[in-house]
């Protein structure tokens, strides 16, 4: 594990560099364990890392770094299977035809492959309610769009690399839009204000409404 300074009040602990469910499970468990410490203000799991915001009056980067290594060496508690969300998708996104063409598949087949796996929510972040999900089947792997869109509608279901996601708010975006859902991901009047949490599982199914 490598631990880096992120300024004078945060550390980035890297558990690995691969998109991997086991690494992500360890990162989520480590973040949960760190949050219980008095010198830790906030611990956020990334794909394979934990960003730890600490109280510099109670910890030094060295003392906290050592504690992070000790905690990471412990066997994490058995992770419970995450909550399962079933999400209806209308597979009629503006990029569906182009994606199908590039992958030498039919649009119908892209939808079938996309809705086959149960995806894992690796982390929630970037913008409110956005969830990085994967791994996407290799058959659908594509680089991001060369020119990002300046405005992607909320509810757009998108793919890029080995990841899939849903735009929770209208925002710029460079992923390929293959469908849309009416499910709201950003719930500003709930706490936490988002539908998905890190570690949750998501199953898409084709819908006409």
């Amino acid at each position, binding site marked *: 594990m490598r631990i880096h300074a*992120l300024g004078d009040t945060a550390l980035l602990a890297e558990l690995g560099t691969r998109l991997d469910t086991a690494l992500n499970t360890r990162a989520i468990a480590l973040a949960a364990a760190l949050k219980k410490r008095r010198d830790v203000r906030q611990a956020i799991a990334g794909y394979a890392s934990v960003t730890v915001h600490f109280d510099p009056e109670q910890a030094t980067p060295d003392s906290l770094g050592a504690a992070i290594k000790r905690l990471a060496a412990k066997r994490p508690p058995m992770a419970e299977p995450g909550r399962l969300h079933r999400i209806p998708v209308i597979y009629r996104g503006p990029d569906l035809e182009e994606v199908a063409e590039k992958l030498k598949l039919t649009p119908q087949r892209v939808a079938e492959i996309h809705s086959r796996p149960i995806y894992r929510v690796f982390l929630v972040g970037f913008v*409110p309610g956005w969830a990085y999900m994967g791994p996407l089947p290799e058959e659908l792997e594509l680089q991001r769009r060369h020119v990002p869109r300046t405005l992607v509608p909320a509810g757009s279901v998108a793919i890029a690399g080995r990841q899939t996601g849903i735009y929770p708010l209208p925002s710029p975006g460079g992923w390929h839009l293959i469908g849309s859902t009416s499910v709201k991901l950003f719930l500003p009047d709930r706490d936490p204000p988002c539908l998905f949490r890190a570690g949750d599982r998501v199953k898409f199914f084709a819908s006409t409404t």
Partner: protein
Amino acid sequence: MKAVLRVVEPGLFTTVQDLGRPNAIAAGVPPGGAMDRFAHRAANLLVGNAEIDATLECTLSGPHLRAEHACIVAITGADFEPRINGTQVANWTGIFVSPGDRLTFGARRAGGRAYIAVAGGLEGDRWLGSASTNLMAARGGMHGRNLKAGDQLTTAREASRPAVSGHHLPERLRPRYTDHTLFAIAGPHIKRLDAESRRLLFGATFNVSREADRMGYRLDGPRLATSGDELLSFGLAAGAIQVPRAGQPILLMADHQTAGGYPVVATVVSASLQVAGQLVPGDELRFAEVTIERARQMRQSQAAALDSLRDDLR
């Protein structure tokens, strides 16, 4: 509570801010809060408030406010030449205001963001534990938006008694907003910069571009060359200097995205975030590398300056 101030003119971009909502980061919600936390805290302490009370953050120009009730206000941060009924008043000082008094501002002399605290603390919509305004979610502060003419500003509670004006932060303890050197600690991905780019990062002059807001500043200046594979997204922090593939650095500020996958080559230390929070498009800046130990000393001297205000009020 009671409406103490009425907004006659809102200024260019004025929002309610406090110390933000760090507990919402895990949901992807930006931490938010005052861009210059030193000025925000000092303004509150000068009027007898708690540091976490909400203040107004005024960007590039000040508002025109009319007092509806007697109150104490303090204006800190950028110097926009504050005036009461047309007569210039001191920054970084607690001031009595009487009903009918008009608080206005003149020209921008230094800094980009002024803070106005009112004894009793400003009332704002609370969202996820904070009254800070989040425009994207349209939540917090003044109904999730910047101020507009006609808004009424109310206090969260009765001001502490007795009311005392004239508390001030001595000049020597105020941040020097004209010195745009931002101290930074080398970041997790500093090794992705080639030698020349590393030299430029800690040597060249950059300019805050027009693409600069509370989320962050894109910086004009030399391009920084990074190498290596794409990174997996990870949790970010205010002050992080990201370098996307095209090489134009981005300095993340209070409303920053909570996660991202661009290399972070350095992070501005907490004691320098105050000055960073005063920057506006066109400002020059440079980064200077510091050690964790030096960052600690800088942080502690700022804390001591705020402590002196607290002792003052005892």
